């Protein structure tokens, strides 16, 4: 192969001009490539953005219309975008967000739109998915849009082995039926975590209180976490009708259930509650004794005076303090008793006396 350039040729001006031209062309091509790439990325960013703005404006106008959305006609510019999965999901997310914020006639219009655009099929597809987070999303969409005809399928998932699916399904039951949604406790075999219990109580808070059907059977459930939750409900909603069932829980084998039962009795006390609590006190752990004393601080009376005086001699200072608190709160001569004790045994009763004076503002 004959290579035409010699060493002397490389230093000729003509060669340098050729090289310069070649580099210039390469730089121009590179710049064109960079601008083309930027243009494509800008298009990829703004096109969904323009769809988003247009779609949200369109649904905002539709939900304000007075008439029903019969024979909904989707504008052609949206129809083609709604065939793409990502834009379809975006549109569905917009409707879900809007439904969470509005109620009344506008909320109903949003549901009409959701059905009219065929999004319910998308939600059902997610519900049927084998992937847990898709299932959760499907449950959430159906529950936010109040699709109660799906309640049977969602109810089955309230005892699913996946905790996220369980939680979302349980939340969906509340969305559909309020207090009635608690019926999943009848079938729950998995544990109801403390966090989920807090969440459920929080969800119940805005609802108007109503009689809780099934509470009595939940208090006898084989699932200990269901029993604890039921005791919390009895406490918060002052369910006097289950007083005897709660008293039965004081004899449960699990310490946490016995403690929760003692706590609940404070809110649903009857005439005999103080005596019942004193009767169970002796056999309890220190933790539960403190809970019982806290409950007695609300329900005790002069009848418990001998028991409480006896407890002032307990070796545990926390139990001494608890008993002293009950005496001061519930017994007519409680303060005099404590003053006398403080004089006889300054340590620890003087400290306990001053502490209670401050705590109870006396």
């Amino acid at each position, binding site marked *: 192969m004959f290579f035409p350039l010699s060493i002397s040729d490389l230093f000729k001006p003509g060669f340098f001009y050729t090289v310069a031209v070649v580099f210039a062309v390469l730089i121009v091509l590179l710049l064109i490539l960079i601008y083309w790439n930027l243009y494509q990325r800008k298009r990829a960013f703004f096109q969904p953005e323009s769809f988003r703005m247009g779609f949200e404006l369109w649904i905002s106008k539709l939900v304000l219309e007075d008439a029903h959305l019969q024979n909904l006609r989707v504008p052609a510019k949206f129809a083609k975008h709604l065939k793409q999965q990502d834009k379809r999901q975006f549109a569905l997310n917009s409707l879900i*967000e809007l439904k969470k*914020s509005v109620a*009344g006639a506008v909320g109903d219009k949003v549901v009409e739109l959701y059905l009219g655009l065929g999004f319910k099929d998308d939600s059902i597809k997610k519900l049927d998915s084998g992937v847990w987070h898709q299932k959760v999303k499907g449950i959430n969409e159906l529950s936010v849009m109040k699709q109660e005809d799906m309640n049977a399928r969602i109810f089955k998932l309230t005892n699913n082995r996946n905790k996220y699916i369980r939680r979302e399904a349980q939340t969906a039951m509340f969305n559909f039926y309020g207090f009635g949604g608690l019926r999943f406790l009848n079938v729950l075999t998995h544990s109801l975590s403390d966090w989920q219990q807090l969440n459920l109580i929080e969800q119940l808070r805005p609802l108007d209180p109503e009689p809780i059907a099934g509470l009595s059977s939940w208090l006898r459930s084989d699932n200990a976490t269901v029993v604890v939750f039921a005791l919390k409900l009895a406490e918060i909603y002052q369910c006097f009708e289950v007083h005897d069932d709660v008293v039965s829980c004081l004899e449960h084998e699990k310490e946490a259930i016995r403690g929760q039962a003692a706590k609940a009795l404070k809110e649903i006390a009857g005439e005999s509650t103080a005596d019942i609590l004193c009767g169970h006190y002796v056999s309890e752990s220190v933790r539960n004794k403190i809970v019982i004393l806290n409950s007695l601080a609300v329900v005790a009376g002069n009848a418990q005076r001998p028991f409480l005086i006896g407890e002032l001699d307990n070796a545990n200072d926390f139990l001494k303090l608890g008993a002293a608190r009950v005496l001061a709160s519930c017994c007519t001569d409680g303060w005099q008793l404590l003053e006398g004790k403080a004089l006889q045994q300054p340590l620890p009763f003087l400290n306990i006396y001053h502490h209670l004076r401050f705590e109870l503002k006396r």
Partner: protein
Amino acid sequence: MKILLVEDATALLRAIELKLKKIGYDVYPCSDGRQALMELQSFTPDLVITDIMLPFVSGLEVLNAAKARNRKTPVIVFSAMGQENAVEEAFLLGADDYVVKPFGLKELEMRIKRVMGTINAEPGS
């Protein structure tokens, strides 16, 4: 009447904006707190309606800025369920009313009329 409306959920912002415009109000929509603060620097609204939870700058700061501009400007805040502490703080900062999501647009309209009616009824206003 000029209403400064601040809400980060765009579909809700548009729906409220359209509803209020239909009634006859002049609405200045903002999708975040920063934009709202900039608008407050350029004009004094007759009413501010703001969500509490906003990106960049919270609704409480918007409320503060609106009251700093004109103490008598009424402010209505949106809150989600469970945000009682934020609503309490909003009232301490001078909010005049609040609406809990989800709410009906009719309810919002009534609250606007109530708040504006209260202001108009004040002696010397």
